[in-house]
């Protein structure tokens, strides 16, 4: 597609050039959403496992009640635990990894709702970051 875009540019076919440029951006978006979905799955699975594990622990008092509530919500209505809260169970909410998940989640949501990236994404950087996060949020 790059060669076609270059050819359109060399011939001054602006609309065609823009059309190829748009297709390149759409490819980036599709690939990004695919990559993010892997992280999303990892966070859902990891947070579910953590909740199960904590629920089974012999905790007492308020600590037990927190995990009892999360366990109930996880089993009765999993979507009631927001994605970023799930991420917060696996990585400190004040840390850089959490901020990175949040930033990419915002982009994922923008695309999922029919928009495009709200900021520029460098796919090599995004892939490297998402791979790092995939390991970092391990339960």
């Amino acid at each position: 597609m790059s060669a076609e875009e270059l050819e359109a540019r060399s011939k001054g076919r602006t609309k065609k050039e823009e059309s190829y440029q748009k297709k390149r951006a759409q490819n980036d978006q599709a690939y990004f959403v695919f990559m993010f979905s892997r992280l999303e799955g990892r966070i859902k699975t990891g947070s579910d496992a953590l909740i199960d594990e904590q629920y089974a622990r012999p905790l007492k008092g308020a600590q037990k009640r927190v995990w009892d509530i999360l366990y109930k919500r996880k089993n009765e209505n999993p979507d009631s635990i927001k994605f970023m809260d799930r991420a917060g169970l696996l990585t400190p909410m004040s840390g850089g990894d959490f901020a990175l998940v949040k930033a990419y989640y915002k982009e994922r949501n923008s695309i999922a709702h029919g928009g495009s990236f709200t900021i520029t994404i460098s796919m090599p950087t995004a892939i490297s970051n998402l791979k790092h996060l995939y390991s970092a949020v391990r339960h």
Partner: protein
Amino acid sequence: MELEAQMPINKVHVSKRVKDWKLRVTKLYKEIGSWVSDKPEYKMSLGGSIRMYEELMAKYGLPPEKVQTADLYKGDKLIASFKPVGLWVIGANGRIDMLTTSGSYTIVDNADQFQAPKWHMYSPSDHRKGKPFSKHELLAIV
């Protein structure tokens, strides 16, 4: 990761970053021009401008800007085109796409903001291993 969180973000700051971005882009074009200056068959020329209006510019009420593109010719043939994609990039300080007949290369500035640029290039076939963007790398492609 960009250091935006460590610096006060306001209209002046965002405006400075936009100016810095435009300057870094034009400096890179000049540098590329110097890389091929000893090869008479190559010619680097400025192309049209593209619109820049990023989220933070809108948020702080800055007007859209224009950023220059550039083209590299070998003889009469356009062999590479440089298109700035954006300044605010997660994990980098700006991205330029280099279109060639062999694919679209991503060039990102890995330096912190307001620092001397560290341009890295990623090939379309390998998004994992970037290389410093240099005369040697460019000429190996074109």
